[in-house]
């Protein structure tokens, strides 16, 4: 194998952020042309400081490798959790490198061979990671053209690339393939000339619809998720849990459990794991463990939590303000005040948190259902005081994440048990583990006071979010006098996030869009205007106006003279991760049973450039479908630290019969940068149904979810 090196810019520093020596990297991935890539704009990849300590590496990192057979391997720390980036990233790569899509192989979520990444969340993959990958591809193409130019003795400017074949534009017979250029070589290239990234509009694959490329192995059962893996000597773990979240282990006797054949019980501080080669036996042995706990008293439950949040001594951070609120209210003809309660919700992915941990000599390998493999690698290295290059995290297929697989508790537990037992440990959380230790969508309260003048223009908007953050509350309507205040946990006060909280698909935006859009609707009523016309009159964001109009067109919306009209049609809109959505729904209310049937939901979405319209539509429909559970069913019931919903028997999510016809339009914005697509359509569903309920009945509900009992109660009050 020839070893070539050009333009080496590594400043004497041979280790990169994986903690790995570069030659080890070559050993792992083999020969070919490897393009090490220096990200130009690190902020693009990691726009926020949380949740990791590391940032995108400042040194070179491999993103692409071209094999002797012309296959292009693309290494990314992103993971596929169902959102379909496994295909949209291939589209982007195929276009930028001019190769057929089948030639691109994604290698994802392996900390040893993939470049560092902040995590797959926040719909960042396409909008932020995409541009970096595109530069890597453009650089790779530059390398290939340079090699081809040398080989064919033709100036690079005279070369053209079609389907991975580089040829002389003046003499098409003179050509060489990517594979041939890579053959018998081991080249590492470091380019830092900023390459031209071609305009999206010139592309063949980007902007066209493609189906998933992983469905064949997912319909045959071949696709491997973490829990499906097996290594020699592996034991299944079940973990001893307290009856309440506040439980602290005081004593434990596992002598009976150890009598179950093949059982080992290990303890590491508070963590007690029952291990057996056989999952069922581990489960049975766990039942024989006798443990005592002390419990802290927690007063709140899922009903009193909202009042506690309002009463608590909380912070008050003004996030945005403009104009003069007091003066604004003086201009108002009508003032409306609304209080909204949104409960804790579980992520409830069907695959529970799982991890397999294996120590071999001085090395730890953890396979985990995780959205954040590099954070996990850090945490493991810290916990066990191991160097980073001795800790490898691999993420197989993930059975749904929605933000909930970012904290990696199960992986830490598996690794601790593996350490304590000296055996490889597979931990598959039970559904009960999941419903106690998930990091839930936070409960929260909104208090909104706002008013309109005689013209129906919003003159004052005083918005308070309690314990639920403000994502999604940005000012998209014309509100000259406004203030958005976030109230949250104050140090040294009792925690009100009784259940652990974390990002839940479009974190906090569900709550804030719900609040804003119910309030806007109430202002429309006060103004005696149709809710579409009221919104169009008060919106100032042009993208939002266009999106709303697109939804109204698709729905065939006809404004009504009076509101409520009795038709059961609702409107709601919002923005998330740069994307704008507008939704219109039609429902039917059974006033006897309190049941709501959703007949139709229409959604328009402006997500900037859309790489894969079919994939984006699937995500949009998935968001709306998931949100129906949020809207009608989901609520974590708890009393003190005792979680009452521990499985799907009482925690209900969307079922087939609840899903209406979903129609959607993705606005053509090929000239705009791409925005997120995995979350936005979820945010407006609660409000669109709430507003449709008002249009049908003249009644309003201010607490989620809209259960039949709450519907009947609201009807009684109306």
């Amino acid at each position, binding site marked *: 194998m020839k070893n070539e090196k050009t333009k080496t810019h590594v400043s004497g520093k041979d280790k990169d952020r994986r903690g790995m020596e570069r030659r080890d990297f070559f050993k792992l991935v083999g020969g070919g042309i490897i393009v090490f890539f220096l990200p130009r704009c690190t902020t693009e990849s990691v726009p926020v400081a949380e949740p990791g300590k590391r940032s995108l590496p400042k040194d070179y990192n491999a993103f692409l490798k071209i094999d002797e057979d012309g296959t292009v391997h693309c290494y990314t720390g992103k993971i596929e959790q169902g959102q379909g980036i496994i295909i949209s990233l291939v589209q982007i790569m195929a276009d930028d490198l001019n190769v057929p899509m089948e030639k691109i192989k994604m290698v994802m979520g392996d900390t040893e061979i993939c470049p560092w990444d902040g995590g797959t969340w926040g719909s960042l993959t396409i909008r932020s990671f995409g541009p970096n990958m595109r530069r890597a591809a453009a650089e790779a193409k530059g390398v290939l053209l340079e090699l081809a130019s040398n080989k064919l003795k033709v100036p690079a400017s005279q070369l053209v690339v079609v389907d991975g074949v580089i040829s002389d534009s003046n003499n098409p017979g003179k050509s060489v393939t990517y594979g041939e250029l890579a053959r018998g070589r081991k080249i590492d290239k470091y380019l830092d000339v900023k390459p031209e990234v071609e305009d999206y509009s010139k592309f063949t694959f980007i902007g066209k619809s493609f189906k998933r490329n992983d469905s064949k192995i997912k319909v045959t059962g071949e696709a491997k998720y973490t829990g499906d893996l097996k290594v020699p000597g592996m034991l299944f773990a079940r973990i001893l849990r307290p009856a309440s979240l506040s439980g602290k282990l005081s004593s434990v006797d596992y002598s009976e459990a150890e009598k179950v054949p093949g059982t080992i019980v290990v303890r590491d501080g508070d963590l007690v794991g029952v291990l057996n080669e056989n*999952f069922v036996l581990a489960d049975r042995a766990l039942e024989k463990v006798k443990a005592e706990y002390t419990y802290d008293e927690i007063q709140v439950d899922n009903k009193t939590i909202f009042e506690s949040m309002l009463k608590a001594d909380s912070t008050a951070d003004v996030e945005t303000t403009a104009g003069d609120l007091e003066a604004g209210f003086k201009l108002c003809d009508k003032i409306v005040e609304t209080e909204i309660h949104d409960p804790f919700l579980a992520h409830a992915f069907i695959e529970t948190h799982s991890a397999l941990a294996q120590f071999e000599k001085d090395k730890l390998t953890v396979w985990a259902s995780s959205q954040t493999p590099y954070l996990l690698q850090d945490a493991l290295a810290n916990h066990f005081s191991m160097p980073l290059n001795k800790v490898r995290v691999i993420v197989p297929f993930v059975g749904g994440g929605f933000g909930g697989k970012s904290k990696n508790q199960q992986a830490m537990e598996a690794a601790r048990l593996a350490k304590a037992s000296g055996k490889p440990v597979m931990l598959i959380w039970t559904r009960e583990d999941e419903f106690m230790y998930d990091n839930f969508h936070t409960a929260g309260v909104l208090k909104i006071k706002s008013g309109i003048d005689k013209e129906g223009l919003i003159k004052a908007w005083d918005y308070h979010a309690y314990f639920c953050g403000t994502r999604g509350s940005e000012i998209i309507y014309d509100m000259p006098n406004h203030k958005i205040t976030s109230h949250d946990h104050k140090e040294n006060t009792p925690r009100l996030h009784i259940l652990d909280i974390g990002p839940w698909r479009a974190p906090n935006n569900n709550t804030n869009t719900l609040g804003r859009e119910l309030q806007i609707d109430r202002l429309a009523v006060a103004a005696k205007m149709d809710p579409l016309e009221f919104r169009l009159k008060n919106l100032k964001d042009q993208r939002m106006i266009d999106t709303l109009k697109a939804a109204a067109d698709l729905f065939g919306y006809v404004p009504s003279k009076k509101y409520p009209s009795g038709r059961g049609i609702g409107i709601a809109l919002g923005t998330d991760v740069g994307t704008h959505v507008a939704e219109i729904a039609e429902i039917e209310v059974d006033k006897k049973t309190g049941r709501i049937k959703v007949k139709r939901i229409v959604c328009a979405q402006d997500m900037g450039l859309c790489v894969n319209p079919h994939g984006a539509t699937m995500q949009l429909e998935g968001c709306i*479908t998931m949100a129906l559970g949020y809207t009608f069913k989901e609520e974590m019931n708890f009393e003190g630290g005792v979680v009452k919903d521990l499985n799907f028997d009482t925690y209900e999510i969307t079922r087939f019969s609840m899903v209406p016809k979903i129609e959607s339009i993705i606005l053509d914005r090929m000239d705009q940068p791409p925005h997120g697509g995995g979350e936005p359509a979820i945010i407006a569903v609660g409000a669109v149904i709430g507003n449709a309920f008002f249009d049908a009945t003249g009644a309003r509900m201010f607490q989620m979810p809209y259960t039949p009992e709450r519907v009947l109660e609201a009807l009684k009050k109306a």
Partner: protein
Amino acid sequence: MEETIIFQLNGKQTELKIDPTQTLLWVLRNNLGLTGTKFGCGIGFCGSCTVLIDNEPVRSCSTTVGDVKGKNVVTIEGLSKDGELHPVQKAFVEHDALQCGFCTPGMIMNAAGLLIKNPAITREEIITGMEDNLCRCGAHVHIIDAVEAAAKEMKGGK
């Protein structure tokens, strides 16, 4: 107490010396290496562990291996014949009836069972028949489309 349990698994006679009270789901996954059948809840409420027992869709998490003695068990791994996908599997691919794919094996097995029982199934009946299988990603509309398409294809004598 261990017993010898003989049953048909994906068309092959299978013999296990095993405690008959062991859960079928875990016997399939651990003892027999068939990990296509998924664990989602363990109490019969999500459907991700669905297999066919004598052509009937059954939750393997709520069935013991003793229960399948002498019976015919088909898992997702045994649904395709001679490398040819079952019409329901094919329709799931064609209709992109999945996202994360974790509920998929259970969905497919449940649908395959429905179609055996009722080849002339209507869309309404598909919805009712699939009602207790949960999907968190929200692939519902595509799943129903896929099952409907598979029903049509199978009725077409293919």
